């Protein structure tokens, strides 16, 4: 059983989605995350164990390698795809409550801004860290964040902006969220955003990169 988890961890870490996937070359013709997850479930390994002892550690390794510039985004995305293949098999267990995530993360690019590369990276890494994701997309105003928060009480909010002209919209969104749910934790990020700006608008955390967002989220969950 442990062998299966080790193999699954390796498949996710190196981005092996399924057996027919040619990537990565060193795992060619071997089972991928899809097959290994099915095997693990059939072997009676608890879904929560699969999540906590294979998937989350795998993505944590990926995040660390990325933060240390040892891999590029495409490799990270392949790992996320492998994790997605595994999560697809685990979906029924999330629905039944057999698996608990660390919480919910609501993320969106703020109003007026359509850039989503940074948002998607953060979303992917936080999900890999064991959180449920509600991705509101791009050009998101305060009303949508508040509505999502009503549907997911206690969720953490993430705001992204690429432009100096749209980052100012973060302030209004933070204020509106605070009016409705003052205790909500809000993290912000994006090229023009700074820790000083974060403090200025009353957000809780400035994430300079995806890994720092994951580390902050994990502290919240611990």
């Amino acid at each position, binding site marked *: 059983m442990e062998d299966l988890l080790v193999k699954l961890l390796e498949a996710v870490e190196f981005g092996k989605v399924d057996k027919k996937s040619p990537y990565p070359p060193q795992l060619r013709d071997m089972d991928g995350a899809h097959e290994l997850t099915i095997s693990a479930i059939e072997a009676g390994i608890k879904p929560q164990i699969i999540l906590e002892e294979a998937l989350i550690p795998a993505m944590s390794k990926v995040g660390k390698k990325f933060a240390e510039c040892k891999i*590029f*985004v*495409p490799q990270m*995305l392949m790992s996320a795809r492998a994790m997605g293949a595994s999560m697809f098999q685990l979906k029924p267990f999330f629905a039944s409550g057999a698996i608990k995530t660390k919480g919910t993360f609501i993320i969106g690019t703020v109003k*007026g801004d359509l850039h989503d*590369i940074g948002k998607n*990276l953060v979303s992917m890494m936080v999900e890999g860290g064991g959180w449920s994701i509600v991705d509101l997309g791009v050009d998101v105003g305060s009303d949508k964040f508040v509505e999502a928060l009503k549907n997911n009480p206690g969720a953490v909010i993430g705001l992204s902006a690429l432009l100096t002209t749209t980052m100012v919209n973060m302030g209004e969104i933070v204020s509106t969220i605070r009016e409705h749910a003052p205790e909500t934790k809000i993290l912000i990020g994006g090229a023009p955003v700074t820790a000083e700006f974060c403090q200025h608008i009353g957000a809780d955390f400035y994430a300079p990169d995806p890994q720092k967002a994951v580390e902050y989220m994990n502290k919240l969950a611990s």
Partner: protein
Amino acid sequence: MKYKNLIINDPKELMFGIAPNPVKTKRGLVIGGGQVYAELNFTLPVMSINNSTLNQVYTHYREIAEGALEHALHMNSKGIVLEFETLLEMTKTPSIGVEIVKIMNEVCENYYQKHGLSSEIRLTPNDLREFERPARQRSSQHLEPMMELFEQGMIAGGDLLSIESTGGKEVSDEALMMCDVKGMVFALAVLGVRDMHFLWEKIVALANKHGKIAAGDSACGFANTAMVLAEKKYIPKVFATIVRVISVVRSIVAMEEGAIGPDKDCGYEGPFLKAITGIPISMEGKTAACAHLSPLGNIASACADLWSNESVQNIKLLSGMAPTAYLEQLEYDARLMNAALNAGKVHAHILQQLLVASDVYTDPQALILSPENVIRISNQLIKGDSYVANAKNGALAALDIIEEALLSGKMKLPELETGYLPILRDDLNTIPENESEFIAMMLPLLDESKFTLAEYGL
């Protein structure tokens, strides 16, 4: 495809300040006619644009233009270009953009009449179609205000017309993150090319109607996004290099439709456009570090006709307002290049060699911009019978150049980078040169919910 031969064949003729087809402006600049001019670009500090702040917005732009021209006069400048790249609100409500052009044009005209200082405005509306997903490149309601701003803006004094158009971006964003070279060829050489034909036919017609200059486009949203992602170590530099070369086949369509330059500053594909079409180009490098970092600080100026800072916020520095400070830096760079040009071909060539040598082997993105490599790649970018074939051939030539530089030991790259070279080559080799075959190959691989073929005339 219009261009089958290079206008500039000899790398030594690919020189800063000199273009085979210089562009003359109404206040007397001759861009590419033997000297380099500064092109100053600027933007607002962090602020909202709404009815209550409009007067502040107008004041900022007046101050920027006055500050820059006053200092240009003080520095005995031979002339400058002010690029007004609009922000979202200024294009959505064209009257705002037009008013800013009017304000800046008044300042330009005042300095011209009183002091004889030549300056022109490059008007660059932002591509509002970027703000719709899936993009509606041809049927978008955003097209109307964009074209209105172009027309009314040129009447108000915008003489050089540019845009950073975004056709194909909905496909390229994901392709960039996956290092998907086939996806990038599809985005740029299939979708991008079609959108460029659609858009630039209109821009050129408007420019001709009003006696203005259709200048050129930039693949900023594609190739500069790749460069910035590579700078952050998100994607390999070798991939960003290939994306730059592929972007040429898309940006050259503006010239095929009748644009005459100067091509836009952030288009580092400019040197290839200059070699192929003979138009003057604007470039940016070390003096654009206020806007973004790059590995091309010196080499970017090797064949620039305008020298730009990309963009700087109108904020106070110790020396003065930031746009004025950057104008000074650009002017000094231009002065040095002009001194070399005035001293003769040998001196200009020596300065160019130093600008090239100081960067060329530090990064593959710099490597492809040496005049020799620009000419070598450009030859491949025009030899095919389709844009797809040209993109593929140009990219393969760039890969050859990178591998030769590595083999010779002149350039060093980490294994994390070099590991992508065979992957990129294999991927490129799977691309058929026939466009229809390529489209048929790609459609099953792409998420068609993200783009609408009909919006590209397909």
